[in-house]
């Protein structure tokens, strides 16, 4: 009987320790996985934003210009006009595709990249989810002197992305910031 009691106690202690380790390990796993996932998403989104801004000729106030669905602002939407190109990769004069980075209106945690090519363009249309845990975005429009400017006068864009998600018992947060110039402006 004593042996059974000792064995049960040891088993209980060992089991508790193992369960504790298991729970903590799972928590660590969840948090670290969330951080890794956020970091990868932010890296990709920052690259996408930077390349699109560099290729842009102008920041469009709205898209489409008639009965607009999207409107450029500082907290939800950025509309970029980029030169269209033909099947040989040559730029088409006076023709632009529109690249839109927008916080999803139905689910504000989702940040999308949308591409609306001109009918003459060989650029492919795109509707891609970049982030699924978005908290906030901020676009600051700057002129050549790095001073804040209106959309029409901007030659650079300073962007900040904040993401957050529940991982275990705590929130995991990450942010990313970058500045890019409109090389085709």
């Amino acid at each position, binding site marked *: 009987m004593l042996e059974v009691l000792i064995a049960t106690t*040891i*088993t209980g202690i*060992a*089991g508790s320790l*193992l369960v504790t*380790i*298991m729970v903590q*390990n*799972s928590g*660590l*796993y969840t948090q*670290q*996985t969330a*951080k*890794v996932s956020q*970091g*990868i998403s932010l*890296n*990709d989104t*920052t*690259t996408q934003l*930077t*390349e699109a801004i*560099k*290729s842009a*000729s*102008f*920041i*469009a*106030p709205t898209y489409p210009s008639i009965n607009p669905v999207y409107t450029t602002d500082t907290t939800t939407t950025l509309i970029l*006009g980029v*030169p269209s*190109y033909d099947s040989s*990769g040559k*730029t088409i*004069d*006076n023709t632009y595709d529109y690249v839109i980075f927008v916080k999803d209106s139905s689910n504000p945690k989702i940040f999308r990249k949308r591409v609306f090519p001109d009918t003459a363009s060989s650029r492919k249309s795109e509707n891609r989810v970049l982030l699924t845990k978005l908290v906030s975005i901020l676009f600051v429009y700057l*002129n*050549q*002197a790095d*001073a804040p*400017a*209106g*959309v*029409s*006068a901007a*030659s650079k864009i300073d962007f900040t992305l904040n993401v957050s998600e529940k991982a275990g018992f705590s929130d995991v947060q990450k942010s990313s910031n970058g500045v890019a110039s409109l*090389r*085709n*402006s």
Partner: protein
Amino acid sequence: MFNLNQQGQIILLATIFMTLITINVVLLISNAINFNNNSRYSVQGLQATNIAEAALDKAVASLNATVGSYTGEGETFLGPGSYEVTVTTLPASKLITATAYIPNKTNTKIRRTISIQTAKGAGAAFNYGIQVGEGGIVMSNGANVDGSVYSNGNIVMNGNNTISGDTYVAGGTQPSPDQQTDCASVCDFQFGGAGFFSQIDVAQSFKPSVSSQLNKVSLKLKKIGSPNGDLRVDIMRDNGGKPNTSSTLAYTNIYNSLVSSTYSFVTVGFVAPAILTAGTTYWIKIHPDSSCCSSSKRWSWALDGTNPYNLGFGSYNNGTNNLWNSLTTSDFVFQTYMGGVPTKIIGAQPSNTKITGNAYANTLYNIGVGGDAYFQSEGQVLVRGSNCSTNIYCHVVSVDPGPATMPISDAQIAEWKSQTATNPINSIPACSSQITLGPGKYIGNVVFPNNCTIIIKSPLYITGNLTLGNNDIIKLDPSYGLSSGVVMTDGLITINPNVHATGSGTAGSFLMLLSTRDHSLGAAITVDNNFNSNVLDKALLYAGNGTISVANNVKVNEISAWGITLSNNVTISYDTGLASTFFSSGPSGAFSAIKGTYQSK
């Protein structure tokens, strides 16, 4: 069958748990490695993009250095990677494609390709968004400038004004030349090499009458054919009757496009002027591009063989510094303009007349400066919130900024005008909705009604006034493609509300509205509300000898004038970076990237 006394259950249990933990740890390590790889990929992608952009910059510089013969290069190592460049000749431009590899082409982990088109043309070099001559800028109450400014005259801020950028006011220049000579009869001295082998560099000595900074020089030049490259002008000390070529005191460039095919004075300023001593001999030396010339293209500096200037003489050499040949009885035609006239940026009070960037001027008074302040004297100035008594952001300097050269010379305008002489326009068609005009010359005034679209074929020269009605659209014909166009008047250009002016529609094409009206006759260009409100409008305003008066909500890509007046509550913004803009006619300029052609793949 089932033995309750069997031993080892704990080990079994522990093994299961340890297996699960091990799996978790392995997954964690795997994720960490994945994140590390992703981050490294992002960093290397950025490095590759930067290397490719650096390669593009180098390619443009190489095109200019080799007068367009650069064809690219094979794998060249730079920093953490390598790049290669190809140059493809297109009908009106050159396509430069730069590909960067990390770490190298053989073992590529990351590759980025960026392409851009370059072209050359008249190459007017617009280096500042707003460039102003001796007339300076007057900002009425509430007027603002969104960007940097370079002014050769005073900037007066009357209250509630902000200039959002660096602001330069050059030291004032004496109105008349300190030293000068001109040519009375035949005066040709061709130089540049290729047929004139011993006449490569040319120089003229002079002695200033006052001790002061030399702000600018005017040289009487012309080109024969289309020589390549720009001319470099050096101010040098004397070394036993010849230029001391190891002692350059100041230098500047004469852009190729500023010189025409007939003799005219080309004036260039020194942004970093030299301080000269009265009665001491100095030299003005001109050095052409090494591949400028051939038997059909070269430069010429007017030379008077009657020895009209007795404080100096001309000289030339064969490109080797010490082999100078003196022309002791001849003088090259020149004028020197000394500084010493105080100029200033003057505000109403530091709290409401502000410069957000750095401020450079002889005198700063009653303004707030957000960056650093550079001056010879100041009063009631707040720099980063403090006065200048013990402020490390206040810099007392001994030399004022030199005057900047206006981007288009009178000679170039004259050449554009001469091109229109063979295409007289006898009448202006009535405009009900749209008309096409030019190229050519119209004698008289032109008034367009409201809501008219005017398609311009460049160059268009109107000898009188030009009035654009409300809501008019004036744009360059689409066939001009990458090139820009110009509408010139000798009179007043009046731009009524809501006018749009733009280039051909191709990115990088602009329409320039240019008036040669002198400031003594009143404004040269008046711009009313909401000019170029569309983001795609692309216009340049130019009045090298006159004033431009600007009303509210005006957007321009570049504005250059002798003087600028901003009305109450005006905000003027502009696009910068028009290092060169190419016109469909005129002499050749340098290669430069064409906006709108940058592509990343």
